[in-house]
């Protein structure tokens, strides 16, 4: 597997300092997280790449919820992901910005984003 990347940005409030979860994966993944402090490391992890591809696949299948215009304080996440040239750029608001069946898509996407974050924070250990 080669050429996957993800950049998740999550602003804190009211400081607006941005938590960052970033990974660029080719043979190995170069990972960078910023949550109060910066951590950078390399790790070989196929599971992370699988999750990034899953996110791209959700987009291709039309399972990304539609997000209307958001004010700055309404932004929960910005997510950029790519896999071998396919790119996804998603801005997600807070849950009540998603009505009807868009909410189910939103819940699925949040679950996936949180899983990727958790992998980077806890499962792919800093070497």
């Amino acid at each position, binding site marked *: 597997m080669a050429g996957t990347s993800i950049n998740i940005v999550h602003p804190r*409030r*009211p400081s*607006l300092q*941005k938590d960052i979860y970033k990974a660029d994966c080719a043979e190995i993944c170069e990972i960078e997280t910023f949550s109060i402090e910066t951590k950078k490391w390399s790790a070989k992890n196929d599971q992370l790449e699988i999750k990034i591809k899953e996110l791209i696949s959700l987009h291709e299948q039309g399972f990304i919820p539609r997000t209307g215009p958001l004010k700055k304080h309404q932004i929960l996440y910005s997510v950029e992901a790519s896999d071998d040239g396919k790119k996804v750029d998603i801005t997600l608001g807070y849950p009540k910005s998603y009505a009807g069946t868009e*909410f189910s898509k939103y819940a699925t996407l949040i679950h996936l984003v949180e899983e990727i974050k958790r992998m980077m924070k806890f499962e792919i250990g800093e070497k």
Partner: protein
Amino acid sequence: MKSFILLVVLGSTAAVANDTIRDGLKVLNNPAGTVNSIDCDPSKPWCQDLFKHACSIKKTQNKLGSLDRMVSDKYWRKLPAKPEKKLYNNTAMEAISTAEKNVFSMGKVNKAEVDQLFFDAKAVLLQAVGNDPAIPIIRRANLQKNLSAVKLLTGLDYIKDLEEWARKQDPKMNADDRRHGAIQMYTSTCGANGLEVNAFYENGNIVLCPGLIYSLEDYGPKSKDEILNALSFTIGHELSHSIEPETFPDVYSKFGLCFTETTKNSKFWNSETAGELSGDYWGAKVLASRIRVQGVRGGNTARTVGLSIDGFCSETSGRNSPQPSTAFRVNNSIARTPEIRESLGCGSLSVDAPACTLAGAIPK
């Protein structure tokens, strides 16, 4: 001769005291106008760079980290690698509940005090909105209506509220999936145990992550008022998202123009900056109302600002730096709030470095 000198000294002391009392009374009546006449010691570091000074105030312990580890060890370590949703949900709810209870029992402030703080903050803003001559009379009722409707929710309240909302959006969604989604939405901002230093406003609700409250304990606060004062800024800021510039542009037009002119940047006031600068304006108002009553001054005010901006001081990298910068927000907005500036004991504002208010620049 000695008696004469003593009389002169006593007379001078009384005159100074009387002058101080007169100046103090004038400040209460007209803080923006009188602040220019109060002398200030230019060596006070918070007057030169309040952001730098406030960020030099460091945490002296890590109670928050200890609590987070304790809760994680108690609940999450025991969970299997890929738990089924019901088990995950139950674990999360117990962890969030335990963390919150500990924050309010082990910390200096309890939940009732935070609820009262919220009520008081709302009252301050309602009065400020009602009395500010710069706010068009036709707007005041709507501003007050929006402010009045805002609620402060705990983490569990928020999760349950979101579950109910989700049930109406998609009745076919499985209950465990619904709860799982609601929990993830809460924990994405507040962390697995609710102990991230974070807060948010969403559709008329404010959530202060318990971590935001407990984090302040790590500064070794001398009293509960230190914590409540710091929280008052955040509450005021988040409350203001119910009365934002995008919704009430005419209320903030002179406020925005002031920033455009003082930064000499015609694009400075935009959808990215406006909400946060107005949030800081109202947050500072709420904070100022408390410290004025308590008589907090000088270095103690600077320390209070330091605790209020907990989380503002972290390093940021390049393109992900917030706009406006946290230094700008503190030095060009909070530090120039007339009531805060008077409390800091700093020198006059100037036409080149004015306070931006709803009436425009002060001084003009």
